[in-house]
């Protein structure tokens, strides 16, 4: 029941978690303030015989204060969000040295096409793997998301990345893993009866490890 | 409060008497104006979709006149405008208490309105024979949905007009109480206005 975000392993983790904790602080304070005031008023001003409530219609100064305070706080959060949002989702912010990968989402599987040794998609040495995403630590990846049938959503909790894959659209999403290890990828948009089964493993290798895997992986001819 | 029943017959065309001043018009007229607000949003949804799809996928549409018969529909549009004119004439004559004029113009409006629907049904049959069906593509889908629902609204309008005409023949309307005529007139002008927009963006572009 913790309010801390689980351990993350991508460059976005720093930016998103910091903003989340900031909002958690702000809303936490607001929450405690309101609920304590509420409980205090309930106790302090409960009905007692012979007592009459104060005939009071409100106070414009208070109204202006709490309206402007709320407005300022939300605008600050908005400004802080806009920069991060553009860095993460901006269409022109994909780092040039990112490895291109195509992930084709279909009902209840992720078909991942790797560029192969030459690092370029569309060449003969590309190979496709079912529901396995293998990455190199520290190497940014630029994923081209396509979908064959329904809307799926490419969601890796550990990398704090989520992007819907919409049939008929090619959507680019990029991220950069920072820790070797094994993580999970799930589908976050209802896409039919097997929506809960669209699980894929995400393995972040060191460079040599990845090359070794890619070499013997390319040898296997994978069925369509 | 004096018993207000006595005033009941004379000023039924005014907003409800003895109440806080509201919109200054009687309930049915205000109700129709508000209802037309919801109809505007309904056609916004359909026409908005058409515009978005056409901007995103222009090749699905053909040049004007290639698939759709513009001349016949132009005449049809003229007919619908005429029916608005006859509606105004009907409304003017009931205001002057000219009940026979009211009946005459109402019948004219009903006839022209139903001719409009007839021509549209004929055009649909002709188009479907030519193979232009809703499942043909975006062009067919948007065309039939928009013009189909407009035709549906015109048909409802004609049915209500027939009902108003029938009550006119019963002598229900007079110079002092012509609410039915005015309310259906509002609806009719709205439906005519929507067609003018539809005719331009569907047939002429």
């Amino acid at each position, binding site marked *: 029941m913790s309010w801390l975000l689980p351990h993350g392993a991508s460059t976005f983790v720093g930016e998103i978690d910091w903003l989340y904790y900031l909002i958690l602080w702000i809303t936490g304070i607001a929450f405690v303030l309101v609920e304590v005031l509420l409980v205090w008023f309930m106790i302090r001003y409960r009905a007692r015989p012979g007592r009459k409530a104060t005939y009071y219609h409100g106070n414009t100064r208070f109204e202006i204060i709490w309206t402007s305070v709320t407005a300022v706080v939300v605008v600050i959060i908005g400004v802080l969000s806009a920069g991060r949002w553009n860095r993460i989702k901006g269409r022109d912010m994909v780092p040039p040295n990112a490895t291109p990968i195509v992930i084709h989402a*279909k009902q209840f599987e992720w078909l991942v096409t790797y560029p192969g040794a030459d690092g370029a998609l569309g060449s003969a040495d590309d190979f496709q*793997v079912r529901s396995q995403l293998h990455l190199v630590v520290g190497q940014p990846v630029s994923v081209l998301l396509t979908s064959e049938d329904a809307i799926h959503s490419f969601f890796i909790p550990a990398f704090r990345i989520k992007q819907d894959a919409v049939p008929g659209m090619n959507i680019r999403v990029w991220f950069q893993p920072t820790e070797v290890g094994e993580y999970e990828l799930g589908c976050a948009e209802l896409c039919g009866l097997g929506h809960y*089964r669209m699980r*894929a493993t995400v393995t972040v290798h060191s460079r040599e490890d990845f090359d070794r895997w890619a070499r013997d992986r390319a040898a*296997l001819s*994978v*069925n369509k | 409060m004096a018993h207000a029943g006595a005033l009941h017959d004379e000023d039924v065309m005014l907003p409800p008497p003895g109440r806080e001043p509201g919109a200054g018009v009687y309930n049915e007229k205000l109700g129709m104006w508000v209802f037309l607000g919801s109809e505007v949003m309904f056609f916004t949804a359909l026409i908005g979709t058409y515009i978005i799809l056409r901007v995103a996928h222009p090749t699905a549409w053909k040049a004007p006149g290639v698939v759709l018969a513009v001349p016949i529909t132009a005449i049809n549009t003229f007919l619908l405008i005429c029916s608005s004119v006859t509606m105004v004439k009907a409304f003017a004559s009931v205001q002057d208490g000219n009940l026979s004029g009211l009946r005459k113009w109402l019948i004219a409006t009903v006839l022209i309105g139903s001719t409009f629907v007839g021509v549209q049904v004929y055009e649909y049959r002709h188009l479907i024979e030519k193979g232009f069906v809703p499942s043909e593509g975006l062009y067919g889908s948007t065309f039939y949905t928009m013009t189909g629902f407009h035709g549906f609204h015109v048909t409802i309008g004609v049915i209500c007009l027939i009902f108003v005409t029938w009550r006119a023949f019963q002598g229900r309307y007079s110079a002092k109480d012509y609410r039915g005529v005015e309310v259906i007139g509002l609806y009719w002008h709205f439906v005519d206005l929507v067609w003018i927009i539809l005719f331009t963006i569907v047939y002429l572009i």
Partner: protein
Amino acid sequence: MRQVLIGGMLLTVAACGGGGEKAGSDTATPAGAAPAAGAAPTAMAGGSVTGHVKFDGAAPANPTIDMSEEAACKGKYTGPALDPVVMVTNGMLGNVVLYVKSGLPAGQTYPVPSEPVVIDQRGCLYHPRALAIMAGQKLEIKNSDPVLHNIKALPTKNRPFNISQPTEGMTTTRTFTTPEDNVPVECNVHGWMHSNIIVLPHPFFAVSGEDGSFTIKGLPAGTYEIEARHAKLGTKTMSVTVPADGAATADFTFAATGT
């Protein structure tokens, strides 16, 4: 009041429309199954056709399946999992559907076999990979994997269905009401799982086992044209005369290229 009537009418249409369909799919409706009225269904005769389906030439390599993401199924294979598209064991070809293509008296109706045709999902593969069934006969779909399989059948003449079996040991029965040449069946959770079903108006069919052998029983005397169909290698036909109560043999051979 007018809207109320329309609403009411819509409601009755939906309710009886719903009711009617429901009965059609699950329970076998014998009346619907038999094609033409024709003579009353006869008892099963004694004749039968047996034989083997041979395969000459080198068997092509079956594609390997990457089941690494499905540990429960991967565990059921020692080596790499192969998709038995062309299942050849010492020269014999399995997964071939054989059935009487013509020669049955026209308009003759046959009793629907009571025992269901079973298609088993084991090791994330369909066993058998192809099968035939009579219209109206129960198709029993069994899931022997502790893993979700969904069975999506997309026939054109029959009603398509898309059902799921999340737990091991689950069985679901469905019936096809009208004969259809090819009903593709697939599992969307495992993209490599494919199967084909042919729905026949009569009960004379069989699927060749791993040893390539098959028997079609209950045939009345007469000469028939038997067709053997393999999902990848195509079809072959052969005409056979069946005695009143004996067995006729019919051996098919498929080649690597397959005509």
